[in-house]
């Protein structure tokens, strides 16, 4: 157990063995008591049990008293020695045994509340295969250098953050995003350390290695988060610092007044507010662990508490509620098929750098496969669009102004175009031979799970949902309406966001800001709570936000809020239970309804129950997670 300059062999036994041995001895003494009565031999066994179980307690007590600290070990030791002196041998044996048993069970169960985080640590990569000068060698992940080529095969862990330069693979990124459905990666894609290749193979150029990888930083943050104390915890620690001495004083007073040694000793045993002190940290560690396993980083106990009590949630639009990449939402062709229109538009835009043009090309590639044809002639008209020639036909692709300038009437389509714009979309018109041959609507797509977000947050007790955006009013209104937000503020500069957050906080209470962390860092920092979504790989988001959702999925936000509420609830249950037990024990002892060993039993059981209750948090979300991405 603990290095101790070999005084008694029993001191070197493990906690489990001590419990077992003293348990057996105590059982024998009980049997003897039934068979032969309360005789010397029975007492001898009881004393032996008390010695075996009590020795480590006494030793710890002495160690602490040398520094003037009176802990529970000291209290128990005094009580046991007292019990032996006044002839209560059975009590002495039972109390020490129960204390050791409780201690043993507590350390076993408390491990469980920390198990999620331990499991995360186990995901760290332990070796890497590096290709240097054409030769593959296996090295430890710390030895990989930036710029090295790392080869990863099926079943192996990727050991660096980098860019794929060769191969393609299905990769399980659960270590980072919490999502175990594999994503397919190919040349040019970003890889994360800690993720596992399920099939295929990759050659990766290392960009970040060792301690700098996203995974290593997540681990470090989670490790630190566990012990950044919640407010409640700090308060409880202060409280218990007064509680124990107060009880000691009380037991002295009780002894002086009543002269009853047993009563005073019993008071001492129940004096330690064990359940109360650990009520908060065990819940927090289980809650943080549960989140970490699913790609939700809650940076401290205090953040967990805040998230659990947040009233207003403000959202950034682009990249948070929307995907952040414009894409084609509707194609309407006249006189040709939609695919034909898309193909022609994509060919025309193939050299375009404009985001709208890229959206068209992306859509065409996705729907029709790569397009290799090139326009015969292209002319870009800034602020309007472009014109190009294909198979002898002149095409115009752009906004209203372009078409009007080229003498093509859009009157018959005006109503349709306005309606699309009203929905927050940008319309690209394609014209040829004097007529409109198609309308392509492009929008920054709302995230798939955005529509379900608001009702879920409301159900979890968020009072008000607000969107803050730099985008124009029309687009903002359309999106706010579609998602069902309570309020929206448009045309904002970053500085405006900060002052609006301030107003909202004054009006509704504790506020959280949700953003992608890229351009809204000041807002994230100024809200009571900053939540970054899709934080994997973006440094700013991981550093400034209080809560980081690794995957770019809004369902993780509802999960995080739900988890934090469950954690706070769990903490409150623990505190209420611990206080109740302490009050009942105190009353029970003072009215002499609780004796020494029973007091110890209740005390230890209450500590154990608090830990077991916290461990329940590890199962949060298991029932409701019907499928990936669903809460």
């Amino acid at each position, binding site marked *: 157990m603990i290095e101790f300059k070999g005084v008694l062999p029993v001191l070197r036994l493990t906690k489990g063995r001590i419990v077992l041995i003293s348990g057996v001895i105590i059982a024998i003494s009980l049997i003897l008591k039934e068979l032969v009565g309360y005789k010397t031999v029975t007492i001898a066994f009881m004393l032996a049990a008390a010695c075996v179980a009590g020795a480590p307690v006494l030793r710890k007590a002495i160690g602490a008293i040398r520094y003037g600290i009176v802990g529970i070990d000291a209290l128990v030791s005094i009580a046991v020695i007292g019990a032996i002196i006044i002839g209560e041998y059975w009590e002495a044996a039972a109390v020490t045994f129960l204390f050791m048993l409780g201690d043993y069970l507590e*350390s076993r169960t408390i491990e469980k509340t920390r198990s999620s985080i331990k499991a995360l640590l186990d995901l760290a990569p332990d070796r890497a295969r590096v290709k240097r000068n054409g030769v593959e060698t296996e090295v430890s992940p710390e030895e990989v250098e930036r710029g090295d080529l790392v080869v990863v095969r099926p079943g192996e862990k990727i050991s660096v953050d980098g860019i794929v330069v060769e191969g393609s693979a299905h990769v399980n990124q659960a270590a980072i995003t919490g999502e175990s459905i594999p994503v397919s990666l190919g040349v040019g894609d970003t890889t994360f350390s800690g993720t596992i290749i399920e099939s295929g193979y990759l050659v990766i150029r290392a960009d970040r290695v060792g301690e700098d990888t996203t995974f290593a930083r997540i681990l470090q943050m989670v490790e630190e988060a566990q012990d950044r104390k919640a407010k409640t915890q700090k308060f409880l620690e202060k409280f218990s610092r007064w509680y124990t001495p107060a009880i000691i004083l009380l037991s002295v007073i009780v002894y002086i007044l009543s002269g009853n040694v047993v009563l005073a000793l019993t008071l001492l045993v129940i004096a330690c507010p064990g359940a109360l002190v650990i009520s908060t940290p065990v819940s927090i560690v289980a809650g943080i662990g549960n989140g970490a396993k699913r790609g939700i980083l809650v940076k401290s106990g205090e953040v967990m508490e805040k998230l659990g009590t947040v009233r207003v949630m403000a959202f950034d639009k682009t990249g948070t509620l929307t995907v952040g990449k414009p894409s084609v939402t509707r194609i309407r062709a006249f006189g040709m098929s939609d695919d034909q229109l898309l193909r022609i538009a994509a060919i025309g835009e193939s050299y375009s750098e404009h985001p709208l043009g890229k959206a068209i090309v992306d859509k065409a590639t996705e729907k029709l496969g790569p397009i290799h044809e090139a326009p015969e002639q292209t002319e870009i008209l800034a602020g309007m669009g472009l014109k190009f020639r294909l198979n002898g036909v002149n095409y115009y692709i752009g906004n209203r102004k372009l078409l009007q300038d080229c003498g093509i009437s859009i009157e018959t389509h005006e109503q349709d175009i306005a309606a699309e714009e009203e929905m927050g979309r940008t319309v690209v018109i394609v014209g040829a031979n004097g007529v409109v041959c198609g309308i392509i609507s492009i929008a920054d797509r709302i995230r798939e799970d955005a529509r379900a977000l608001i009702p879920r947050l409301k159900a979890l007790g968020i009072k008000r949902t607000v969107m803050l955006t730099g985008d124009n009013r029309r687009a903002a209104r359309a999106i706010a309406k579609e998602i069902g937000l309570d309020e929206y503020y448009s045309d904002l500069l970053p500085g405006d966001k900060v002052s609006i957050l301030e107003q909202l906080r004054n009006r509704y209470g504790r506020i959280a800001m949700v953003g992608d962390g890229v351009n809204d860092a000041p807002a994230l920092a100024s809200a009571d709570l900053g939540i970054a979504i899709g934080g994997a790989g973006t440094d700013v988001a991981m550093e400034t936000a209080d809560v980081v959702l690794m995957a770019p999925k809004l369902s993780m936000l509802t999960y995080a809020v739900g988890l934090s509420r469950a954690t706070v609830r769990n903490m409150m249950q623990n505190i209420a239970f611990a206080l109740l037990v302490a009050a009942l024990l105190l009353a029970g002892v003072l009215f002499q309804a609780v004796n020494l060993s029973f007091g110890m039993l209740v005390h230890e059981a209450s500590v154990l129950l608090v830990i077991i209750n916290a461990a329940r948090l590890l199962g949060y979300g298991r029932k409701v997670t019907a499928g990936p991405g669903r809460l």
Partner: protein
Amino acid sequence: MTNKTYQLETISCPSCIAKIEGMLKKTEGIVSSEVLFNTSRVRVSFDEAKITSDEIRNRIGKLGYRVLGEK
């Protein structure tokens, strides 16, 4: 002033926190200390002129908690 973090074997009993912190507080040369319950670590900042890191480890050990490592 020096800052060090010591990794202990798993702490599970709630009174350990008070005990270790209490001992360190009364130790000459130690400016501040904090027991991290969940990670079983002790964070100490101390005056190297008055106490060595080995001595701190030694004292924590004597209290009954094995120090597994430091950084």
